């Protein structure tokens, strides 16, 4: 506690210099302007304005970005109150009361109360988080599927109490919302649901789009249906005094603000709807997982070189290293730090590159806007090869390539085929730059509680699943390659050694700074 207080005082002394307060003010103003624009929330605002902070020192830059974040959060409520169009997801609820107040000529007090409420809620939440972060983080991580389900049920119970006169209508609308929420990729199986072949729908329907449709377009259509005279009558001209809230307004609001602070603080702690699987598996909320290699990055980061670009020669080389002393050490660290017992390795294919032009040598990737997942080590290697890496979430990849936001992508062949990237890319470059694998892991305390017979059965099933999956993916990889060629995509086999040589300084650098348990030369020697 005392330590937290010292850090907090130190932070305040840095943050409250005139210079940093000025940057915060600029950030908040620009953030508010961004937040007013429908569809652009705080995260998008920060992403767009990061370049504006490049010239600043790190502290001022972070303070300015915080200003942008909070400004954008508040900006979203401005259009909710004035136009019934939410600027971003969090301000949808503001439409309900705020717009009603605006229609009564009380937009000024509504905007002021919103700002005061945001300030009180934000400040108290940050103070609470500063002092209570470690125990609250443990509680938040214990939030598993059963708790999420309970929270959803609680949401529906609350919904039934705030829906006016007809419970039946509210329930029907809730079910329609849930149906719309199922559009996109099924989070459990990865299969498509109601996408009708459209890649735009793979990522689902954004909540902001639905909210703007319901509130914004709904409001426009309602007004369009009214005679012009009726609309003119609704323009109210308040006096200046009426633009800020009265003491009575504040007295009535303070209870709701404090209630909102408590609820918002609790809900904000819960991990998002796509929690990190590795963490859930580590805490026992998930008993088993079979996905990528994120568990290494989270619980054994010095061993994440297994999935570093150009580190491994091929899958056989990968398995030799994984079955050797380095792999054993990685598995030991996973058990010790992540409570995870490793059961098997699934080969997912070699990662290749897709482009709109042929790539033969490293010079051809100069300035190429290459889409990568948000993995810092991968970005570092491609940046060192003079490409221009851009982090785009997988469901948005197709559109990013189509609109030109990204010019090239990299991934394993099943990914290239399942996301139909061949429709927006003309060339497949066989770079073989990364051996993509997935791990099967089980929560170790859960495994240890099982009988010896059950443990043996799980280990045996893991080995069988590994052999079956590896065979299936290797066969499928060849079939995908033939299919892509049949569709007329140009397959280019570049000079692999020159690519490896170009990547060498960056990969060597990563072995020195991030993966210091070994060297690249030692890995290649196995």
């Amino acid at each position: 506690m005392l330590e937290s207080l010292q850090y907090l005082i130190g932070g305040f002394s840095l943050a409250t210099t005139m210079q940093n307060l000025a940057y915060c003010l600029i950030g908040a103003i620009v953030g508010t302007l961004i937040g007013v624009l429908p569809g652009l929330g705080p995260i998008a605002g920060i992403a767009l304005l990061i370049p504006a902070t490049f010239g600043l020192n790190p502290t001022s830059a972070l303070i300015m970005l915080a200003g942008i974040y909070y400004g954008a959060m508040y900006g979203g409520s401005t259009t909710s109150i004035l136009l019934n169009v939410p600027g971003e997801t969090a301000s949808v609820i503001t439409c309900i009361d705020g717009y009603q107040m605006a229609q009564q000529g009380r937009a000024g007090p509504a905007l002021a109360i919103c700002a005061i409420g945001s300030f009180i809620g934000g400040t108290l939440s940050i103070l609470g988080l500063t002092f209570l972060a470690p125990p609250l983080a443990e509680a938040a991580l214990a939030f598993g599927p059963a708790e999420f389900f309970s929270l959803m049920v609680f949401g529906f119970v609350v919904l039934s109490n705030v829906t006016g006169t007809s419970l039946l209508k509210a329930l029907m609308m809730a079910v329609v919302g849930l149906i719309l929420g199922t559009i996109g990729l099924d989070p459990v199986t990865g299969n498509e649901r109601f996408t009708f072949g459209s890649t735009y729908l793979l990522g689902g329907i954004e909540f902001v789009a639905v909210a703007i449709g319901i509130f914004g377009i709904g409001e426009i259509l309602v007004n369009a249906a009214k005679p012009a005279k009726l609309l003119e009558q609704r323009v109210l001209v308040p006096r200046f005094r009426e633009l800020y809230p009265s003491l009575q307004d504040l007295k009535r609001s303070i209870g709701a603000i404090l209630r909102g602070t408590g609820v918002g603080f609790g809900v904000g702690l819960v991990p998002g709807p796509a929690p990190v699987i590795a963490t859930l598996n580590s805490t026992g909320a998930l008993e088993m997982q079979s996905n990528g290699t994120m568990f290494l990055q989270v619980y054994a980061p010095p061993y994440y070189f297994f999935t570093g670009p150009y580190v491994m020669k091929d899958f056989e080389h990968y398995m030799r290293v994984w079955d050797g002393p380095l792999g054993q050490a990685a598995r030991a660290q996973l058990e010790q730090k992540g409570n995870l017992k490793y059961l098997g390795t699934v080969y997912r294919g070699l990662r290749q590159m897709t482009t709109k032009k042929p790539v033969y040598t490293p010079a051809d990737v100069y300035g190429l806007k290459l889409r990568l997942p948000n993995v810092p080590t991968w970005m570092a290697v491609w940046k060192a090869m003079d490409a221009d890496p851009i982090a785009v979430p997988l469901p948005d990849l197709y559109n990013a390539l189509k609109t030109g936001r990204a010019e090239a992508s990299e991934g394993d062949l099943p990914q290239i085929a399942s996301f139909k990237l061949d429709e927006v890319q003309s060339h497949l470059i066989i770079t073989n730059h990364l051996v993509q694998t997935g791990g099967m892991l089980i929560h170790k305390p859960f495994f240890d509680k099982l009988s010896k017979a059950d443990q043996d059965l799980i280990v045996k099933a893991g080995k069988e699943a590994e052999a079956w999956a590896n065979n299936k993916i290797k066969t499928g990889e060849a079939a995908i390659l033939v299919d892509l060629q049949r569709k007329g995509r140009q397959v280019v086999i570049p000079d692999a050694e020159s690519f490896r040589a170009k990547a060498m300084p960056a990969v060597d650098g990563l072995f020195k700074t991030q993966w210091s348990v070994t060297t690249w030369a030692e890995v290649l020697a196995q």
Partner: protein
Amino acid sequence: MKASDATGGFVLLFFGGITAALSLRMPIGTFRAAGTGLFPLCLGVLLMALASIFLLTLRVQALSQSQRNAGSREAPESHRQMLLFLGAIILSTLLLDPLGYPLSALVLLVALLRILGVTQWRMNLLISSVTTGVAYLVFVHWLKIPLPMGWLGR
């Protein structure tokens, strides 16, 4: 029975039916090992059940009151205006890819202002052009948001 409520009830009944029918094309699985289609199938059936109860309630209410409540009706002119508005929005969405953002936004604004009663073409074009220009500068130039440019971008 209120006509708008009844229409809404039938639309939701139909929507639930379509959802359930499309879900049946996906793997359903079991409740212990749910397939992709199980959750939407349950939701589709639930929506149909709720919509049926809603329609029945409306029918019972209508019979007990033994009088038909026509509900509030908009003037035919207002309905026409609303439909034109909706049509303009749908049309501009369809034109977004071939015409690009600047031109389709301009077409949409000209149409909307015309529907709203701005009859002077000069004033209409001035407001539409300035608004489109500002939106283009903010979104495309300043915020670098990739929007389709249509044949203007070629």
